[in-house]
């Protein structure tokens, strides 16, 4: 079967966006446009589930590969997936319809444009996760800046202009060095095809600089301390749906890039720079957790907690152990679900009460019992309680870290405690306690569409928390393969030195 299923996944949302662009739907607040968007994104979700079903989990090769001549013969349009990328694709296609359902709560103006931006964004995000050529990857990676810039800038809060600019320029600055590195790789090896590069390998003397160039880009996007400062700004000012997209998927591009490119292409440099990544990750885990404790704005608190969680992810990846990397991937998926859910939950109360300040809330449990329940599940998911996805990710990462370096693992474990502290404290202040603010009493419990979106997120968080096997199955072989290649290169390098 030669049906270009990955390209259809990539293109379908854009086609939907074009359809919305060219149809007139002035009446009833663009309802029809919304249904079109929802239909397209759901179709894409089903298509990606089908892909997961027919995907061969025991093969180390890239599957569904499409290879087309693109840039006058020397760079090809090449896409394909392995066990790692498919999970991120499903995460993307799963989060997008949830975003589209949640749209009517937060977006009041220019709904049509917003839907187009989200759908185009989905195209770019899926593209990132399945491109098998560095130039194609860069294209998708960078292109995502345009819709996100507009989402923050047009529909954002008061300081939206500042945040949108900061987001755009920070990430662009990080990425241009990656472009230099990609072109250098082309001239060093003669190809930018990832599969070929895995076979060829890159000479040791170039690896350190190239790794650093890629690292600049990924570190900004992850974001790692000290270049994380764009994230809280972007999150606070972005509309709820924008925050969801940003936290759930955009941040994962960098983690994915670390596994696919930093580890895969520059194994020797990765080994050399492990300490650097450890230190930055630990600072991210401890420092931003402490910062999160002090936040008065709910969105800012969750944004800082994202930085801490991504610190765990980078730590896990660079332990270079099976558990560590699997844990990191699991943690990314889990964080994608949990942070999306948390931002949506904040959106729920923000829409009713128009403030995100924690001290304006309190005692929501007696007014909005349903909300309190789902919010509790997400809080527990974020702090990594056993039985939620968060636990499995963090547990595996710490296991991997213990194997490599006990001191690092012990410091990182502190982060788990701090994570529990700020999340539980947030929950206590918002949901429990006396109702001090009388205005809260008029707040209504969850509406139908909110129940739908939040339940859709509760289910996978709990299900995969109790039964992680399906996800683990899918990534196991691919992670093993990545690690084998990595160790093989290291041993070869040592042997050539002797």
């Amino acid at each position, binding site marked *: 079967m030669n049906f270009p299923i990955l390209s259809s996944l990539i293109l379908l949302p854009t086609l939907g966006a074009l359809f919305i662009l060219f149809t007139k739907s002035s009446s009833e607040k663009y309802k029809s446009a919304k249904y079109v968007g929802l239909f397209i994104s759901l179709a894409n979700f089903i298509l990606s589930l089908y892909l997961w079903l027919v995907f061969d989990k025991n093969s180390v090769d890239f599957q569904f590969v499409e290879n087309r001549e693109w840039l006058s013969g020397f760079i090809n349009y090449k896409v394909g997936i392995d066990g790692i990328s498919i999970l991120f694709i499903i995460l993307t296609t799963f989060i997008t319809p949830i975003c589209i359902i949640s749209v009517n709560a937060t977006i009041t103006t220019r709904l049509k*444009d917003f839907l187009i931006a989200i759908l185009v964004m989905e195209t770019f995000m899926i593209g990132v996760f399945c491109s098998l050529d560095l*130039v194609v990857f860069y294209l998708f990676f960078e*292109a995502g800046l345009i819709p996100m810039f507009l989402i923050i800038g047009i529909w954002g809060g008061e300081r939206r202009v500042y945040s*949108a*600019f900061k987001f*755009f*320029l920070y990430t*662009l*600055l990080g990425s*241009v060095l990656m472009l230099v590195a990609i072109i250098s790789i082309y001239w060093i090896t003669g190809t930018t095809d990832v599969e070929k590069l895995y076979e060829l390998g890159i000479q040791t003397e170039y690896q350190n600089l190239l790794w650093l160039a890629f690292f600049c880009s990924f570190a900004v996007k992850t974001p790692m301390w000290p270049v994380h400062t764009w994230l809280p700004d972007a999150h606070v000012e972005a509309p709820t749906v924008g925050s969801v997209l940003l936290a759930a998927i955009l941040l994962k591009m960098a983690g994915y890039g670390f596994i696919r490119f930093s580890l895969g292409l520059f194994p020797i440099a990765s080994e050399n720079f492990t300490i650097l990544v450890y230190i930055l990750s630990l600072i991210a885990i401890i420092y931003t957790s402490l910062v999160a404790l002090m936040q008065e704005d709910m969105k800012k608190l969750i944004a800082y907690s994202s930085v801490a969680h991504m610190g765990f992810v980078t730590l896990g990846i660079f332990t270079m152990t099976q558990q560590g990397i699997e844990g990191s991937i699991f943690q990314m998926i889990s964080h994608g679900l949990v942070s999306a859910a948390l931002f949506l939950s904040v959106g729920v109360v923000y829409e009713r009460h128009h403030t995100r300040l924690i001290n304006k809330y309190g005692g929501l449990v007696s007014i909005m019992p349903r909300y309190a329940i789902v919010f509790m599940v997400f809080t527990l998911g974020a702090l990594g309680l056993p039985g939620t996805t968060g636990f499995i990710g963090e547990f595996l990462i710490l296991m991997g870290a213990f194997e490599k370096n006990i001191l690092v693992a012990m410091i990182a474990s502190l982060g788990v405690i701090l994570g529990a502290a700020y999340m539980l404290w947030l929950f206590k202040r918002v949901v429990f306690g006396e109702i001090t603010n009388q205005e809260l009493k008029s707040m209504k419990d969850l509406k139908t569409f909110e129940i739908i979106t939040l339940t859709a997120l509760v289910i996978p968080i709990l299900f995969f928390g109790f039964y992680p096997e399906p996800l683990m199955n899918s990534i196991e072989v691919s992670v093993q393969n990545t690690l084998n290649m990595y160790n093989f290169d290291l041993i070869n390098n040592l042997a050539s030195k002797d």
Partner: protein
Amino acid sequence: MENFQFILPEVFISITIMLFLLIGVFKKNSANLIYNLSAISLVILLALILNLSSLDATYLFNNSYLIDNLSNYMKLILVGSGIFVMLIGSKYIQVINLNKIEYPILILSSILGMMIMISSNDLIVFYMGLELQSLALYVLASFNRDNLLSTESGLKYFVLSALSSGLLLYGCSLIYGFSESTNFDQILINSTEFNYGTTFGIVFILVGLAFKISAVPFHMWAPDVYQGSPTSVTLFFAILPKIAALSVFIKFLYTPFANMNDQWQTIIVFISIASMIFGAVAAIGQKNLKRLIAYSSISHMGYALAGLATVSNQGIQSSITYITIYLVMNLAFFSCLFMLKRDDKYYENIEDLSGLSKKHPILSFSLLIVLFSLAGIPPLAGFFAKFYVFLAVIEQSMYFLAIVGLLGTVVAAFYYLRIIKIIYFDPEKKEYETSHNLGLKITLAISTIFILAYFIYPSGITEIVSKITMI
């Protein structure tokens, strides 16, 4: 006489110019007629040049004139953009009452001068072409003679351009003195040994050319002239002289001075870096869109020159691709500018774009695409232009140039984003008139679609370009 067909385009346009001049003098109120006829004659010119494209390279007039694939391609994009310039400027010229017979005739003579520049294979022929285009441009810049800014810009351009022509001529005479010939191929043969005379000659010639292409540090005229000239002339300035000057750059560096690349490479690298950085930084504080696009074109020329600095075939190709994409982006940008009209007045300040997206969604979307493309964000055409240049630059391991250039794009992104912010994020102002000018709409649609859809088939232009630069 058997070679007459090669020179036919130049002969045709010369005769047309004289004919139109006669019509203009003897027939009253013929401005509109001549404008339309000029546009049609440009289309015929385009066809005549296309007709030559399949033929082999030919030397004419005692080896002083060269018709080859490269010159044909440059002439094609020159005349092609000339047609669009006339198409989208026609309404503007009428509204601001500049519809005089001299206007199209000056444009045609300037194009003729550029064509001679592009094909020249001799210092004297080159200088003839250069002066023909410059003289026409001085008048065009000050064409709106009742306007103080326009007069100022014409005068400024004239004085500075005359100075640079003087330097250029001095360089030519040095080259002639030391290599005993004015013919490019002969200079190449005679200049195998290093001597200071030739080096100085090269420096002076490069200074003159850098002035024409408005590269730093010879850019000072550009912002004032861009702002002062009528917008349709600014559009002309932003595209056509750049194409001509760039192809002369390619010609000079790779024919007569090809043996001396260690002499001129550092100069080009410096000019290129200075233009990229200065153009990006200086544009940040601008309030006038035309002035801003002047600085933006300075930095874009820096990128085009970066390709030439590599001394490689790949580099030449990337520069030609760059200028092709650059001209389309400029056409699109100026078409948008021509649409900002209300009550017979055109608006050209950045503030006038405030909140444009609410009332003019399609126009704003086009501007959005154009601006992101100018900033070099993928997947738009502007990204590919820069990508090819950096591909060539890094092939020669010129990492410093590549990294400075890419950092320049980040700075430049800031001011393009500022315009987008004003269009999309700021509160709206009064509505503009809906344009009913078909030519304008078609140009905008074609150029926007080109920019947006370039990534689908990016090898189209590069294949043509790689064919024409095969030596």
